[in-house]
């Protein structure tokens, strides 16, 4: 994902003169076994395509030519041509791949194997497994630093963020966070790492240099049971000024000031919101709402939810093509 964002920055800078540029938005539907493709300009559904069994994590290569989908129940990663949505090949992933992150250079792919307490590293060109890294119980969240040197894995039952050297595949630090960490996201400048804890109900802000937790962001929404506030997906704007946190069954996305790490407001979206993705120009943020079978589209500048679009059954992940 970071790869997408970084490469998108260059593109967005070059193309700001053409605001009508449309990008394809890919939403994995966990129960529908397919991907819904939307147009980021018209916000309409272009089509729905089968992608294998129980698709969850989804990402795209920096050049926009390969779409990767974790087909969890098929125990592999399926690779599609984003234009035609035809399957090009598959990648070995280890059992039950859930989430993954692509190195900013576009290779390799770091995959969390939820059932096997491993992170599998796969070369997307040779299709070879480069390493299997033992981590904590139920690995899920995967993040990579903007310089590509550090890969983060979060383990949901061990409750840690594991810091992995992206070249030697060695764990060099473990940070204990709150219960059920789901997602790890670096800021674009690499100065901060956000790790969400679904059951703990918090987002830990970690200094990647010292691997110390500098702050824990908590959430409080009038009229919403505290138990329903379950942070999952986290996205930060390129300038680091805004952080968005998907709050699961609270049906809201929290907007956070990226400098103070204080919550600014909560945006009402669809039901059980988990993952999010920006368009390359950061005009829109798409959210997947698993229980209402739709995506909500947030206007990032005005912080308004401008539209919701029905997609497939139990939308899980989302990625926007860089071009």
């Amino acid at each position, binding site marked *: 994902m970071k790869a997408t964002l970084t490469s998108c920055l260059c593109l967005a800078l070059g193309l700001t003169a053409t605001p009508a540029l449309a990008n394809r938005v890919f939403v994995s539907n966990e129960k529908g076994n397919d991907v819904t493709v939307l147009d980021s300009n018209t916000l309409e559904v272009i089509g729905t395509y089968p992608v294998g069994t129980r698709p969850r994590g989804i990402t795209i290569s920096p050049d926009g030519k390969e779409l990767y989908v974790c087909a969890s129940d098929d125990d592999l990663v399926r690779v599609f041509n984003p234009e035609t949505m035809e399957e090009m090949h598959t990648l070995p992933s280890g059992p*039950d791949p859930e989430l993954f992150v692509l190195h900013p250079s576009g290779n390799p792919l770091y995959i969390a194997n*939820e*059932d096997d*307490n491993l992170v599998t590293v796969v070369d997307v060109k040779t299709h070879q497994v480069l*390493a*299997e*890294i*033992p981590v*904590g*119980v*139920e690995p899920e969240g995967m993040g990579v630093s903007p310089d590509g040197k550090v890969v983060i894995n979060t*383990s*949901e*039952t*061990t*409750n*840690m963020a*594991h810091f992995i050297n992206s070249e*030697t*595949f*060695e*764990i*060099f*630090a*473990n940070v*204990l966070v709150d*219960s*059920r960490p789901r997602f790890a996201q670096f800021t674009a400048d690499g100065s901060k790492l956000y790790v969400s804890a679904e*059951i*703990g*109900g918090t987002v830990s802000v970690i200094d990647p240099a010292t691997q110390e937790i500098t702050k824990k962001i908590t959430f409080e929404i009038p009229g919403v*049971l505290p*138990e329903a506030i*379950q942070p999952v997906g986290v996205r930060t704007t390129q300038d680091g000024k805004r952080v968005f946190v998907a709050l699961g*069954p609270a049906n809201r996305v929290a907007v956070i000031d990226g400098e103070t790490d204080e919550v600014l407001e909560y945006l009402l979206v669809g039901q059980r919101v988990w993952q999010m993705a920006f368009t390359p120009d950061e005009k829109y943020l798409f959210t997947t709402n698993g229980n209402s079978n739709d995506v909500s589209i947030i206007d990032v500048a005005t912080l308004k939810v401008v539209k919701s679009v029905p997609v497939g059954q139990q939308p899980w992940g989302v990625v926007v093509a860089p071009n």
Partner: protein
Amino acid sequence: MINRIIILLAGLAVATPVFAQTADPASPPAAAQKQAQMIRAAVLRVDRPGLLPISRLDLPPQDLGFAGARLAIDDNATTGRFMGQEFEALEVAATPETAEGEMEKLLAQGIPFVVVLADDAMTLRLTDLAKDRAIVLNAGARGDDLRGKDCRFNVLHAAPSHAMLADGLAQFLMWKKWPRWFLVKGSHPEDENLAEAYRRAARKFGAEIVEERTFEDTGGARRTDSGHVQVQQQMPVFTQRAPDYDVMITADEAGIFAAYMPYQTWDARLVAGSAGLVPRSWHPAFEAWGGVQFQNRFEKLANRSMRDEDYQTWLALRMIGEAATRAQTADPDKLKEFMLSDRFEVAGFKGQKLTMRDWDHQLRQPILLATGALVASVSPQDQYLHQSSALDTLGIDRPETECKF
């Protein structure tokens, strides 16, 4: 029967070559370099001789509870290798005659945590035997007295109580607007305890028990070559001429009759409680909140699906593991203190953190309402609010507890 299950760091390293490569002196897990702390526990299961379950599908597996313990020790050990902690759980299966002797042996070995799977009376006896020598984690007994007038400071309850289970079902039935209940209870003392939990739930949530009957256990074999024939004759006769009711609630802790009731009642009515829609701590079909991967891990390890007793034993040992991780200690007293503090929370694949009630040492937890093949709902229902935790709408709340430590 005693089996030892110990996951050692060395064993892990050998089994995973990539990890072995990373274990050079400069690289973490650095905790491996220093002396690891060992956190010891035991699981003591007391098997009461008795009749087989009504359904063959409910026959107890040999490793009931123990399989849950093995998964918990695996989970704890995986986390422990990053923390410099090792975990073990001895597995002991006893009879009512040998249980106290086995407990004495565990205490003599200095085991500080004993997970007990037994009925109410035996759990109380074993708890009193342990006194201040060990902390008992109750993973089996559901009686409310154990959390009430018979409560003990050295026991923590991972198993939900009758009151929690009854309240969980009651909330759902009231949400369905099915408030008129026909309560049928068995003739054993534990059936009466469960029936009392349903009477209490009816008062608490505004349901009406329109009639109560007792199904006498007259003994006899469970297996007959004529199968269903007598059941089809007897159950309608037993249930006829009841006042108009919405749901039949069965209170059959002894497992004598409830499973016969669905589809055999005189009136066309639903059955809930000990059969039909059953409130329980776990169900092998449950998929939400990460349940799929938890079920997968268990089934890979045990070659069968997970039962309530396995879940409760897993939960009890995970409570110890989670406390050890957070409090960063192996000291049993400090771990217990931490588990009872407001800083303690454990994730149990039920969509929210599970915490401990300080007034009776009961672990708060959502209750699953399951049919044979699926989970139909999870309580607490959203409509039931509480000033401190929605989970405290289930079971005995602070102002009503009879427990005095």
